[in-house]
């Protein structure tokens, strides 16, 4: 029985271009207070004549356009978002409020330091908090997301080796790793050694030991692993690497399982990134922005990107640009400052007690789901879960139903799907991370939904395979989307010329 949602009328809406008509306006400029100019005269041949198909609409049409569109989305604000590895937790509104305070939201990155002390103090305090939370010595907030943090971190490792005369050649990455890990190692110019997980889905330390030699620059490890399990041999892993001069990089995507309970800096990690848009609650915003600070041990500090924050002799904060060993900048300006503000507000709202309780609740929620669904869905690895639990669709494939189908059926039950097809070491994975933000009530509804779907798989598998049934659009034809990509709107005429099939009007 579907208990969490009903069906309701939901507004259709075409593309904004389909509402455009010459002369409609959503703006008015103040009168120009300097002499008018003739663009043709000033710009000559560089003057632009017209702006093509840019829309002309009124303000109310824009309000309705995006309000209607928004109602087609699922969101944390609407319900549980059990996306494993994504840490879809509550995004507090006070964070949005403080990020928009005039002096914070409107500060120019190049305004003189003496009138930027507020911003710099925010950066400083956040850096200190994050170093404390990770147990690291130094940090850069410049990276714009997790993958960008990985890039920065691996370049730090590279710079470290290079300073010793040889950047080395390889990075070890477990087969359970997120796609960004190998992609990052590759763009940093490293060969990837794919490390097969052991029977528990964890790092096979002896296999690792056999692979690490002095061509290995380091290892990228996610801890807790992507199956949600703490690498209990973590220090042995670090030792194996360190013995050969290789470094341990930790992908901090799963820090929500650790904050306030243990610190990577204490268990042997040399460098790591954090995802402020996961652990520290900055909103995902439909795909971004994020922020991926990179924290490291003291010996890597000289290599951090420029600029780094410094306290000047007069006590004022400022940026230090003269860093001869730095890997250089990874981004213009100082990173996604707006996310720093939100993350710091999150830390304030929690305090040490709240941060610890948050971690405990995240872990409690995952284990509650695990307990209730174990047996109904197969648990491929039995080791204790931290903040997420990974099932497989093994029991369901017997009826021809795959993890992706179950995920789609969850939509009819009023939930966003869990993560599918990751990690790769679990064929047909159902990767579930509830986060601390879910009440028992919401978890029980989720568990009921999952049980109910499991029953449907046995009684009426086609119902599940054809899902979702209750959404405004059904499953999309992804194949033809990729085969004949239509990546932008064109007016009917142009479209037909391009032999793209005519879309229905007003139906989306």
């Amino acid at each position: 029985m579907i208990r969490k949602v009903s069906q309701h009328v939901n507004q259709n809406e075409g593309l904004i271009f389909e509402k455009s008509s010459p002369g409609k306006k959503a703006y008015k400029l103040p009168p120009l207070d300097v002499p008018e100019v003739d663009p043709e005269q000033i710009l000559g041949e560089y003057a632009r004549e017209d702006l093509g198909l840019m829309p002309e609409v009124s303000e109310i049409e824009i309000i309705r356009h995006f309000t209607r569109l928004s109602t087609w989305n699922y969101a944390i604000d609407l319900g549980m978002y059990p996306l494993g590895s994504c840490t879809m937790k509550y995004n507090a509104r006070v964070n949005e409020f403080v990020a928009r305070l005039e002096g914070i939201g409107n500060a120019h990155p190049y305004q003189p330091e003496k009138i930027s002390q507020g911003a710099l103090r925010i950066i400083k305090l956040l850096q200190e908090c994050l170093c404390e939370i990770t147990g690291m010595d130094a940090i850069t907030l410049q990276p714009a997301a997790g993958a960008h943090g990985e890039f920065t971190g691996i370049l730090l490792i590279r710079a470290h080796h290079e300073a010793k005369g040889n950047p080395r050649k390889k990075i070890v990455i477990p087969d359970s790793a997120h796609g960004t890990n190998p992609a990052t190692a590759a763009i940093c110019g490293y060969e990837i050694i794919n490390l097969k997980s052991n029977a528990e889905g964890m790092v096979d330390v002896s296999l690792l030991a056999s692979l690490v030699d002095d061509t290995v620059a380091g290892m990228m490890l996610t801890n807790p692993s992507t199956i949600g399990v703490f690498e209990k041999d973590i220090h042995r892993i670090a030792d194996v690497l360190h013995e050969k001069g290789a470094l341990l990089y930790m992908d901090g995507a799963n820090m929500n399982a650790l904050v306030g309970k243990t610190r990577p800096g204490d268990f042997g990690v040399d460098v790591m990134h954090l995802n402020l848009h996961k652990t520290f609650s900055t909103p995902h915003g439909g795909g971004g922005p994020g922020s991926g600070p990179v924290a490291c041990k003291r010996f890597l500090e000289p290599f951090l990107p420029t600029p780094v924050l410094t306290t000047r002799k007069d006590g004022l904060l400022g940026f230090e640009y003269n860093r001869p060993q730095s890997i250089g900048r990874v981004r213009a300006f100082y990173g996604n400052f707006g996310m720093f503000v939100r993350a710091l507000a999150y830390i304030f709202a929690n305090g040490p007690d709240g941060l610890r309780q948050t971690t405990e609740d995240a872990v409690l929620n995952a284990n509650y789901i695990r307990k209730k669904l174990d047996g109904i869905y197969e648990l491929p690895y039995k080791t204790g879960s931290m903040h997420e639990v990974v099932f497989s669709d093994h029991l369901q494939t017997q009826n021809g139903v795959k993890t992706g189908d179950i995920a789609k059926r969850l939509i009819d039950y009023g939930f966003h799907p869990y993560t599918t097809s990751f990690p790769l070491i679990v064929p047909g994975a159902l990767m579930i991370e509830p986060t601390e933000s879910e009440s028992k009530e919401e978890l029980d509804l989720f568990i009921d939904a999952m049980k109910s779907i499991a029953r449907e798989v046995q009684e009426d598998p086609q119902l599940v395979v054809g899902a979702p049934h209750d959404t405004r659009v059904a499953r999309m034809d992804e194949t033809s989307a990729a085969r004949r990509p239509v990546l932008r709107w064109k007016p009917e005429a142009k479209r037909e010329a391009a032999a793209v099939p005519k879309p229905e009007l007003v139906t989306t």
Partner: protein
Amino acid sequence: MRYLPKSPADRELMLSEIGVASIDEFFQAIPGEYRLDRDLNVPRQMAESEIIDYFRQRSDENAAGYAVFLGAGAYHHYRPVIIDALAQRGEFLTSYTPYQAEISQGTLQTIFEFQTMICELTGMEIANASMYDGSTGAAEAILMAMRVTGREHSVIARSVHPEYREVIHTYLHHRGMPMHFVAYEEQSGEINLDELDRAITSETACVLIQSPNFFGSIEDVAAIADIAHRKGALFVVSIAEALSLGIVKPPAEADIVSLEAQSFGVPLGFGGPYDGVLAAKEKYVRQMPGRLVGETKDKNGKRGYVLTLSTREQHIRREKATSNICTNQALVALMSTIYMDVYGREGLKELATQNLAKAHYAATQFAKKARVLFPNAKRFNEFVVQTKDDPHAMNDRLLEKKIIGGFPLRKFYPELGNASLWCCTEMNTREQIEAVAQAVQA
């Protein structure tokens, strides 16, 4: 804890249903010596009002209410209020990447509209869903050109934003991919075409310029394109001031355009989050980094949108992906989309023309007392002024009048001496401009 939806009784009940005595059991996997048995040394839990007080104090320590004449890659434009009113809706703010198309059509259609408008404005055929910012976008554009051409050298104008160049350097040099920097013309600030021509070899993957460039000078895109293409190199144009596209011809001759769309409704925010995006010729789509949204139909034939061509991306292709980018700048791109809708076809032009007029007026005023460099340049809303005084000293004086002066160039272009880069947008009033021009004299 006010964000945690559990009562103590809920926790007890859940533990007992799981069958464990205490929450500690779940943390047994952490070896005892690494378990933290103390409070983290972070500020104590604060009330919401205390959080606001803290940030208000920080906000007050920062500049507020100053007239801003800084541009240099971050532009002060008016942000219509409906941007935040709409982007703050929980359904946009708190949703994930739209992998589940059936419950993400709102975000997907928005991105499709964004891609379309970026194409219209840049003169390109395709655009992606966003990049981190203009600097990383420029670096990724070069890597993309390398994948397309199979070449590894790049030729870059020195008049590209210095911090963009630093980022490009970080992305390329550790992999031993050579970069050649080309000087600018003394009279125009534009790239020196002869030097450019000489710099391009059969190993050159691409030429990267910025237009309007860091000095505010508009580059001769068509001429540069010719030179690049003649040697089989791709031509990449970086644009830091997106609003210029309202009145400056789009770089339709480019192969790839890397745009920083911050000007389109994104707050200055001390440097980020901003809104990079790559646009390109359609034939290069398979080498495009980042997410792409495409139109398709659902199984009932209804129009809809999906993330597509994801075999380019890291979650499918891993080390063979076109980039490691995953999280992008979606919400910021939404803001830009709303901005572009508000101003639209006529408004962007009218607004850009106002910027042109303001900067033109300001340059004329400055010219009375100081030297405006690059006299032969065509400019949008930035220009370079050389003063007798050290610009830092001048800016200090201006601060007292609640004016933030231009960006001193000596750090990046020592050869320009006491030059600084000034920007005038629709936010700068005539009164401010005149006050500033006055101060230059003093």
